[in-house]
């Protein structure tokens, strides 16, 4: 697997794929995409990196255990769901939207934070699963 082509390409592919995953995450509200797909693409980026450079290098790159992304993502999604209950007395998961229009993002709402949470959870879960499987092989 560790050909020079893959190794060289993975260095450039990692940021590109991560960028693409964020693009997919942000366009997800009205168009195909969203947190789940974006998260999968991001984890594919890291998996590709680990194929080319070895698992240890990828772990070094990540700095922390990918499992730690799970509680962070869950907390973010949970906050997004619970905000309307706590502050606006609306049912759980009601979409709240910032009325103005923001550049790049379009409109900003709790749904975006929920998706961001999903994104983090998916990255964390997928990487944990794949690292666990490849470590014990």
């Amino acid at each position: 697997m560790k050909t020079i082509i893959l190794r060289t390409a993975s260095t450039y592919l990692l940021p590109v794929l991560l960028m693409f995953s964020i693009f997919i995450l942000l366009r997800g509200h009205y168009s195909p995409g969203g947190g789940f797909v974006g998260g999968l693409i991001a984890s594919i980026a890291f998996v590709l990196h680990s194929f080319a450079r070895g698992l240890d290098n990828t772990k070094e790159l990540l700095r922390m255990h990918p499992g730690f992304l799970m509680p962070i993502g869950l907390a973010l999604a949970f906050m997004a769901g619970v905000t309307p209950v706590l502050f606006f007395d609306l049912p759980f998961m009601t979409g709240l939207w910032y009325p103005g229009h923001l550049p790049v993002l379009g409109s900003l709402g709790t749904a975006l934070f929920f998706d961001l949470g999903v994104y983090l959870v998916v990255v964390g879960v997928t990487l944990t699963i794949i690292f666990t499987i490849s470590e014990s092989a």
Partner: protein
Amino acid sequence: MTQQLVLYPLLLQMFLSILLMFCWRRISWQRVVSIVGSIINVGVSIWLFSYIWENGTQIVQAGNWKPPFGIIFVADTLSATLVLLTAISGLAVSSFSSASVVSARLKFGYFPIFHFLLLGLNGAFLTGDIFNLYVWFEIIIISSFVLITLGGEKAQLEGAVKYFTLNILASMIFLTAIAVLYGLTGSLNMADLAIKVAAIENRGLVEITAILFLVAFGIKAAVFPLYFWLPDSYHTPPSAVAAIFGGLLTKVGVYALIRVFTLIFVGDLFLLNVILILAVLTLFSGGLGALVQNNLRKVFSYLIICHIGYMIAGLGLFTEVAIAGTIFYLIHDIIVKTNLFMVSGLIFRMRGTNSIRNLGGLYADYPKLSLLIAIPLFSLVGIPPLSGFWPKISLIIAGFEAERWWVVGAIIFASLITLIIIAKVWAGVVWKEKIELPKRLNFRYFDKLKSVRKVQMIAPMIFLSLISLYIGFGAEHIQKVSSRIANELIDNQNYIDSVLGSEQNIGHEE
């Protein structure tokens, strides 16, 4: 403040599991957070129950979508009662497991997963959407897979493979059933389904869908031909895990059966007869299975199956008295079965084995604890005035009124066989001469535990035993609750109206 009350148990459990995930490595914190959180959860559940008791069925539409669109959470008296019972068992098991589960297991996220399991249970009880029910079921089984394999001993993994396969199969059948139902009606909201299914002309197709649901929930609830996974897996994990499994997991299957067959597929004579026959066979096979086992936890596992039979029998008779008996039995069984598995864990800690042949002399060594153990054991048999007695009366009366003598016979037979089993257990474990076993090395015997840990193990048993006693001696209160639930279930118009006819009440939020 009370607008969203239905969701508070869910949100609390979710918050707890996320919080526990953040302190992944700090086990002593996890113990404290879990126990304190469970106490708060009991408080919230009592609040929910009393609110529902006074104000009737409450609903919350997640995301503020109007029914029948979107996911809806419904708390009628049945749901609120089961949420309360989940909270009580959850508190007991949380305290018990912080003492009895070894820290090597706790290190791999026992507590977060445990609270995810409780979240799934609460969600399954509260949801009013059939696909959402599937999702909660998946949350329950994924957490239970983790709990059952945590530690990774040989027996555990073997049990887990069986548990895993059958439960996944059940989920697939459930999903298939949902697909067919959606194809038939184009709806997933249970109240909406109740109306639309009643209007379908092709009854054959409806019946097949109902059978698919029966099979799927039957596997989960361990009903007669589908129970073989249960006694093969429930005795393998730590007893704290077995306690929450034995107390609540099969009961979710029963709850789903009750919900689906009182709301969506109502009053089909063929189906009710099928359920009755399954119930009778479950009573026989569970009872006879328990009779020949020697491992204490396997005996209790078979008794779970046997007693599922009572609840299904009440559902099959489908009169108000019978359903009230089922609900009463459900309430009694959750508390007692949780307690029994904790008792087996306590005995394991005392002696290092769960084999009845090798146990004995408990009364000589621990007279007071033996008395404590007697309460759940004899409540299970239903020696009056203990708690198992009253629901059986309701079931037998309902059987007489419906003139189904064979059901009455099976109920009495199963009670008798339970009595024999419990007498055997009592004689073998508590009264028999003590058998000297070789001391196990590196095993934390009960005597050697710190006194805090001892309290954490004994206190939940006392707590649950007191509740058992209350169910027995304060039976008129429980009977009042269960007749009200039965009334709501038989007359499902109430449920449908509170879900679909509520636009006027909730509409002020826009």
